[in-house]
C-alpha cells in the first residue's frame, strides 16, 4: 500500500484505502473436502494409451517409436498441409509463414515460426500430432508426424533433408530460441497513484 500514500490524497480516502487493505485476503482458496465424497473409479495407465499423447518437449519424454525425414515429409505436406499453409510452408489460405524469422527477435518486427520461436523441436511433433491437419486432427501416423517435423525443421535450415527424425534425434535438434525464455517476473511496472497535477 506504499503507493496510496502518495501526494494529493484526502484523509477520508486514505483511511478507506487502508481499511480495504486490511480486509483484503485470499478469499478464493477452496474449502477442504470434509464430506467423504469420493466418486473416482480406478483406471490403468494402459487404458489411457490413446489419450496419453503429451510430449514433455524439453527432453522428449513421451515421444513414440517411429521415424521420418524431410524427403518423405515434403510429400505428406504437399498432400495434406499445403492447401492451408502454402507452398514450402511460406504461408497460404489459412495461415502465415512457418519458415524464417530466425534472428528477427532483436528487430522491431519479430517473425514467429517454428524455426524462430520453438525452444524445443519436439513441440512440432506434439502439436502436429494432436492438432493437425485442422480438418482431421489425430489422423496422422507417428511416422508421418516425424516426417512432417523433419520437413518443417529442414525448411528452417535446422536439419538436413535426409536427416531421420525419431524419438532421440528430434530431441537433439538445437533450436535457435532455446534460451530465449524466462519465467514470469511481474509485477514489473512501478505506477504511482498521483491524484493532482500529474504528468
Amino acid at each position, binding site marked *: 500500500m506504499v503507493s496510496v500514500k502518495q501526494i494529493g490524497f484526502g484523509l477520508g480516502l486514505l483511511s478507506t484505502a487502508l481499511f480495504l487493505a486490511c480486509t483484503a485476503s485470499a478469499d478464493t482458496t477452496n474449502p477442504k473436502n470434509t464430506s467423504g465424497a469420493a466418486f473416482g*473409479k480406478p483406471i490403468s495407465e494402459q487404458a489411457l494409451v490413446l489419450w496419453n499423447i503429451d510430449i514433455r518437449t524439453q527432453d522428449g519424454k513421451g515421444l513414440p517409436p517411429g521415424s521420418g525425414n524431410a524427403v518423405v515429409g515434403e510429400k505428406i505436406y504437399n498432400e495434406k498441409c499445403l492447401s492451408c499453409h502454402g507452398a514450402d510452408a511460406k504461408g497460404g489460405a489459412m495461415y502465415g509463414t512457418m519458415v524464417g524469422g530466425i534472428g528477427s527477435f532483436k528487430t522491431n518486427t519479430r517473425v514467429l515460426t517454428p524455426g524462430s520461436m520453438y525452444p524445443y523441436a519436439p513441440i512440432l511433433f506434439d502439436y502436429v500430432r494432436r492438432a493437425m491437419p485442422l480438418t482431421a486432427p489425430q489422423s496422422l501416423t507417428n511416422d508421418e508426424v516425424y516426417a512432417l517435423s523433419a520437413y518443417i525443421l529442414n525448411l528452417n535450415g535446422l536439419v538436413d533433408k535426409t536427416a531421420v527424425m525419431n524419438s532421440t534425434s528430434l530431441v537433439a535438434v538445437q533450436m535457435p530460441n532455446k534460451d530465449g525464455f524466462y519465467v514470469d517476473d511481474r509485477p514489473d511496472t512501478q505506477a*504511482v497513484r498521483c491524484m493532482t497535477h500529474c504528468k
Partner: protein
Amino acid sequence: MKQHEKEQLLQIVKSSEKDIQADISITHGRRSFLRNTVAMAGSAGMLGASALANAQSDVLPIPESNKTMGNQLKFESYGVPSKYESNVKRRRSDILVNKQQYSDWSMTPIQSTPGIVTPNGLFYERHHNGFPDIDPDHHKLVVHGMVAKPLVLTMNDIVRYPTVTKFYFMECSGNGLTDWLTAKSKTVQQTHGLLSCAQWTGVPVSWILDEAGIDPKATWLIAEGADASGHFRSIPIDKMLDDALLVYAMNGEMLRPENGYPLRLLLPGWEGNVSIKWLRRIKAGTEPWHARGETARYTDPMPGGKWRKFSFVMEAKSVITNPSGGMQIQPGFNEIRGYAWSGNGKINAVDVSVDGGKNWQTAELEEPVIDKCLTRFKFNWKWQGGPAQIVSRCVDSTGYVQPTVADIQKVRAITGFVQHHNGLFPWNVSSNGEVTNGIG
C-alpha cells in the same frame, strides 16, 4: 432561471420527446446513452417551477401494449432477449481478422452488460479449433501421471460432489492487443471485450487430486481439452491446490458448448486459455511440458529479443465502458461507468480523470466487491461541453496501481501480438459529444 438555461432545458425536453417517439432501445448503443442522459437531465429540470411552463402539453396516448393481449405463454421455452436488443451480440475484431473462424475469438459487448455478470450468450470465446458439443453421458475426466491411483470420473460422478460456487472474471491474455500504441478499434467491445464474468459452480481440483493420491513430489500438472486442437497447458500445482475448480455450471445453468460444456477447468484470475475447456485429462509431473501454447504462443515479447513465459496472472486493470467509443453524450450530468478487476485480489479503489490523466478523483465502487471478480465503478460527471479525455485507473488489494502504456513500454517490448495489456485506456470526448478511442 436565465434565458439561456431555459432554452437549453427546452431543447433537452424536445429531444427527449423525439427519442420517446422514436421508440428506441433503452440499454444499448450510441443512441441509448444519449437518451439516458437526456432523461436524467430532463427530470432534474422538471423540479423547477419555471420548467413547468415549458412542460410537454400533448396528451400521451394509451400505449398499444395496454390495449392488446400479450404474447401467449409457451408450454416449454428458453427465453431470449427482446428483439429491440438484437444488436447486443458478441463480435469479432475488425482490426485483426483471422483467415478462418476455428482458431479465432469473439468479444463481449461490455458497454451493454450492466452489473458484473456476463450473460452466458455474450460470454467471450476463444477457441483453437472450433467448439464441440459433447454428450455429457460420454464425457470422461481422467487424472493420472504422478498419482497413487489413476482415476476416471464421469459427469454423473462429478456433479455428486458437494458444490463450490464463486464469482470470477475471465480475461483473455490478448485482450487489447490491437490497440497498444495507436487507436484502431472503435468500441470498447473491440478494445476490451475479451473479458467476461460469471458465477461458476463446480468441484475443487484439490479434492480430486487428493482422492487420486497426488505424489508429494509432483510440482506441475497438465490440463488437456477434448476439443479438436487438444489444447493443453502446464499449471503449477500450488494453483491447482489453492483455488482451481472443475466447473460444470455458470450463471445458473450448465456451461454453454462455447464455454467448455460439459466440464472445464477454472483458474481464477489467470489468463483465460489456461482454464482448459472440455476438460478430459489432468496429468501430474515434475516439470512443465513446454507445449506450443506456452512457448510459441501465450508468451510475452521482452526487451533484448527475449520472451516471458508462464505469465499467468491478469494484473489489475480498469476501463470505462460508458461512455465509450461510438457513443454520443449530452452536456450536463453523465454517469461514467466501468469495470475494474485484478487477478491478484480485490479492487481497492478506482480513480477517474476527465482531463486525460492530469487530475484524478475517486470513483464509487458498487457492491459486491469480490476477489478476482469484475467490480463496477461509477463516477458522477458534469460535462461542460468542451473537449475532454476520460480515463480510469485502479488499485488492487496488493497495492498495485494500474500502469500507463508508457509505464509498460519502459519494461516490456511492445511489438507484434503483445499479450497482457493492462494499461490505462482513454476515450476522447469531442466538443459535440462524440466519444472515440483516445489511445496514442
